[in-house]
């Protein structure tokens, strides 16, 4: 059982949350110009690392707000919790962001990166 510190409500049991899967997937803005193969990378292909993974969680049974979380998929250690729309700050989090194959994918090159918001 994970103990997750909701940025809005504090530490709660995992059962109050739902996991929304991989974070920072940018939607291609020029869909019609992409080939089916490249669009399927956006739509179906997954980054599925054994190690640090950046994912979205929602405090479904609490404040119902979304946030990002960097977690190790082997030890389940939670490395960092950070708001939606921003990028991880820890060394491990940054490394995990760069390690994702999407950073080199053709579709991401034609996607607008998620905007940094001031917090």
């Amino acid at each position, binding site marked *: 059982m994970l103990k997750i510190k909701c940025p809005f409500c504090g530490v709660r049991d995992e059962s109050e949350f739902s996991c929304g899967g991989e974070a920072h997937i940018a939607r291609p803005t020029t869909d019609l110009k992409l080939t089916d193969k490249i669009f*399927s990378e956006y739509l179906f292909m997954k980054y599925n690392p054994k190690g640090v993974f950046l994912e979205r969680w929602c405090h479904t049974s609490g404040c119902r707000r979304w946030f990002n979380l960097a977690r190790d*998929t082997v030890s389940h250690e939670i490395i960092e919790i950070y708001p939606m729309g921003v990028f991880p700050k820890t060394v491990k989090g940054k490394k995990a962001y760069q390690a994702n194959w999407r950073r080199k994918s053709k579709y991401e090159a034609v996607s607008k990166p998620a905007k940094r918001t001031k917090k």
Partner: protein
Amino acid sequence: MAKLNIDRGTRAFTRKSKRYSIFSIAKNAASYHQKWQQAWRHAEPKSTYDAVIIGGGGHGLATAYYLANIHGITNIAVIEKGWLGGGNTGRNTTIIRSNYMWDESAAIYEHALKLWEGLSQDLNFNVMFSQRGVLTISHSEHELKGMSRRVHAIRLNGIDSDILSPSEIKKLVPTINIDPNIRYPVMGGFIQKRAGTARHDAVAWGYARAADELGVDIIQNCEVTGLRRNGNQITGIQTTKGFVKTSKVGCVVAGHSSIIADMANIRLPITSRPLQAIVSEPIKPILDTVIMSNAVHMYISQSDKGEMVLGAGVDKYNSYAQTGSWTIPEHMVAAAIDLFPFLSQLRMLRQWGGIVDTCPDASPIISKTDVKGLYFNCGWGTGGFKATPGSGHVFADLIANDRPNPIALPFGLKRFETGYLIDEHGAAGVAH
């Protein structure tokens, strides 16, 4: 639905001296069972193979066995990073069935079930395949209607499937409560009588022994660390026991598929999740059918040892730790008690998790890739055990002939580009 004549192969166990039989038992009893031959050799990797299978679970060993037995390719190795059947093959709830709604799934799971039906004879190893029936219960009028649609679709494909009334269910499963005034009333159900269970370890051991007999090298405690290629052609694999030269690599590593795919710079639509199961202390026989329920979301059967075996859905987040969250077993036990209140008296003995490779459409991937000589068999998700013989059979055909046969064809990676998905999420007969 695509159908193939089932070629069971003719090359295995031609030497009588190696066969298990009543005479071999008698002979070995006379020597106090001290002289049984080794079931398979402890092989070390050779420098070159015609094909290498990564992953020594049921699917990988079956692939090697059928490659050797049907296609005559015997210079092959199965590379396993742990021990045989130590992954999902030894971690599932052993349920076997072929009552899938879509034609593509029906074809492959029925192909597997037909192979299961003769598997103990084929392998000369008792896999304890027991066709005790799998009964899916419905708890509402609407679920029952959806179920009857599924039953008819399944029957049109020539697969046995029957709707049962509550009284027929009571006759089959005397421990069930069919009172209409309970929280989850039993409104009816559907059964596949040819479905059942098998001894999962025996499946791995049986395939390993039969493959070894045909000359396949089974290499345990050997992890693949890299793939080598020349241009777009696979030339070999790097392992913890050195480099192995080969031009064909079949990858059957379930939850770790994405790791191997990364080595070849290939993308897969796979997420790795824990799927948990629990067994209770052994009790006297009370349940000789497998019971599933979508509404309370669990499945239960009784093993030959008498333990109640329970399973449910996958954990909600990605993980490579073979354990899982406590919320799942808690839910699983609560659901089981809803169906069978007497289970609340039982103590649970063991809980475990396996890392399953879930796919967006809940159907497997049996496919060539953009890299020549690299084949993937993955994405079986929560239901791979039942397909073991069929999966190995069609995957061996794909590797040997470098083209998918009609049963494997719909399961190519191309479907994620064309959109021809085989969406079994709601159609499979049990929730995922």
